[in-house]
């Protein structure tokens, strides 16, 4: 594997994002709007600074909200949402004909999207910070910060795996790409990952069940770790669970891809 191939893919993908400037700006506006809404919601719930709900105080819940902004940019920004269309239109052909690994190709394109979104998230957060002047919880325990970083890497991989699996449905049902994507991205992931509200709000049994799904490890669990809301042993358990999910997803992905490729008809030409 030569790295320079992927550096070139990263570059062209980055340049491409700028071709859709307006699109990108609107996407960022959506993110900021969401933060505003969630921020004011929690700000009013916790108007009394001594109040504690679901184990959150004012500082921690508002840090959670700001954390969402960053983690969304890092974990949820992706270009691989285009794969479904590429498969149903037959444009997959273009990449298949080239001596490049398809998964790595898209992962690189995702990374370029993440880099761009993260840059903007930093600027937005700075502005929001100046406007809202929220209290902020700063984690100082070095061990926790390392675990947080590891969890984020796994979160990126888990999201990539889930997204690719969803995007392969057109191999079997060419018209299904958009609906599957919307259900997965718009609803399941948003709610079950904790991007709308912290998952502690759910009843304990649902939380237990969710623990065994990959979704909390996308956003909620890393943030819990950062906020130091759980014990070190639970954190390590979460790291393990994330790692297991990464492995499961990689295996499933390879299997589904091999099956899908045999069905691929390279249509549309």
């Amino acid at each position: 594997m030569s790295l320079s191939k992927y550096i070139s893919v990263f570059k062209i993908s980055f340049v491409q994002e700028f071709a859709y400037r307006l699109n990108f700006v609107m996407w960022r506006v959506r993110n900021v709007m969401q933060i505003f809404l969630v921020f004011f919601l929690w700000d009013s719930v916790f108007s009394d600074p001594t109040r504690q709900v679901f184990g959150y105080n004012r500082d921690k819940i508002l840090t959670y909200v700001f954390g969402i902004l960053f983690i969304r940019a890092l974990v949820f920004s992706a270009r691989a949402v285009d794969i479904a269309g590429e498969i149903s239109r037959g444009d997959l052909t273009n990449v298949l004909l080239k001596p490049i690994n398809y998964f790595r190709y898209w992962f690189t394109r995702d990374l370029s999207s993440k880099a761009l979104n993260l840059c903007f998230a930093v600027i937005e957060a700075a502005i929001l910070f100046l406007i809202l002047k929220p209290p902020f919880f700063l984690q100082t325990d070095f061990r926790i910060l390392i675990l947080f970083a590891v969890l984020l890497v796994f979160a990126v991989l888990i999201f990539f795996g889930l997204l690719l699996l969803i995007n392969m449905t057109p191999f079997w049902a060419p018209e299904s790409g958009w609906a599957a994507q919307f259900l997965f991205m718009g609803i399941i992931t948003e709610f079950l990952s904790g991007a709308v509200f912290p998952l502690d709000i759910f009843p304990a049994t649902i939380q237990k069940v969710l623990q065994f799904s990959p979704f909390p490890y996308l956003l909620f669990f890393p943030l819990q770790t950062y906020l130091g809301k759980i014990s070190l042993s639970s954190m390590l358990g979460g790291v393990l669970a994330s790692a297991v999910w990464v492995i499961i997803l990689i295996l499933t992905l390879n299997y589904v891809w091999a099956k899908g490729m045999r069905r691929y008809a390279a249509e549309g030409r």
Partner: protein
Amino acid sequence: MDRAIIVDHLVKNFEVTVKGPGLRGAISSIISPKRKVVRALKNISFTIQPGELVGFIGPNGAGKTTTLKILSGLLYPTSGFTQVLEFDPWDRRPEFLKQISLVMGQKNQLWWDLPAIETFELNRAIYEIPKRDYEETLKELTELLQVEKLLNIQVRRLSLGQRMKLELVAALLHKPKILFLDEPTIGLDLIAQEKMREFIYEYNKRNGASILLTSHNMDDLINLARRVIVIDEGRIVFDGALEELVNRFAKEKIIKIFLSEEVDIKRIEAIGKVKKIAFPEVVLSVPRSATAVAAAELLQNFPVEDLTIEEVPVEEIVRKVFRGEMRSRVLKK
């Protein structure tokens, strides 16, 4: 290596869902989807030598493109043996992909929102082409196709013809040893078609590349292919020299004349079979061997303003072939 491409008893079936018309069809296809197996390729075999330029012809849906897709590793064959440059295409190994290219008339690998040069640079990295080779090839290709001035313009702003030429550059930067061309001149104007043909010919000569070309354009085939493979309903019905095909099945040539004044059509009918009269244009078909005589006679005895001699379109020959004239005696080289 004495064979660039080997295809042996290749079979490809597709499974498709059949949908009835209208709302009722749509609903019933959701409740109980009917599946149907389409047999796209029924046991075909052929080989191609290094440096050979072969035309692949047949009606729409005959299986030409399917064959090209299997040979470039995009489709999984149902059964049979295929080998390209001693690789199994389906493995799509990097060493294999670096030596082939598939160009399709309506395909776009160029990044739509960016200038073509960006795609070229990306291909340089992906195919790991050394910088010097890349610059040399790029210069050579852009000069041959006269697209030097288009490299920095957003692809979406280019015309179809310009885009096709740039697609070709993108597909050839890595100097493939095997080139699959699917309708390379489709949608191009006559001058661009001519240029494209010259270019393909030149590329074949210079690089000793094997080229497998599909086209509905007789000129493409006449000017480029020494050998043609005719495919119909998933079977090879002819494989041999082009002259053999044309001589055997195009026993006539088409003469088109433009008259400056009306004449008695009966007099023209004495020279050849009149196929169309739309004054001032008259189209007639004459035996191949008598073409020159017929043309001379027309020019001498009629007020002819313009006269052109054309081949019977390949479609017509192919149609003849398909009417069963070939099926009884399939020829192989």
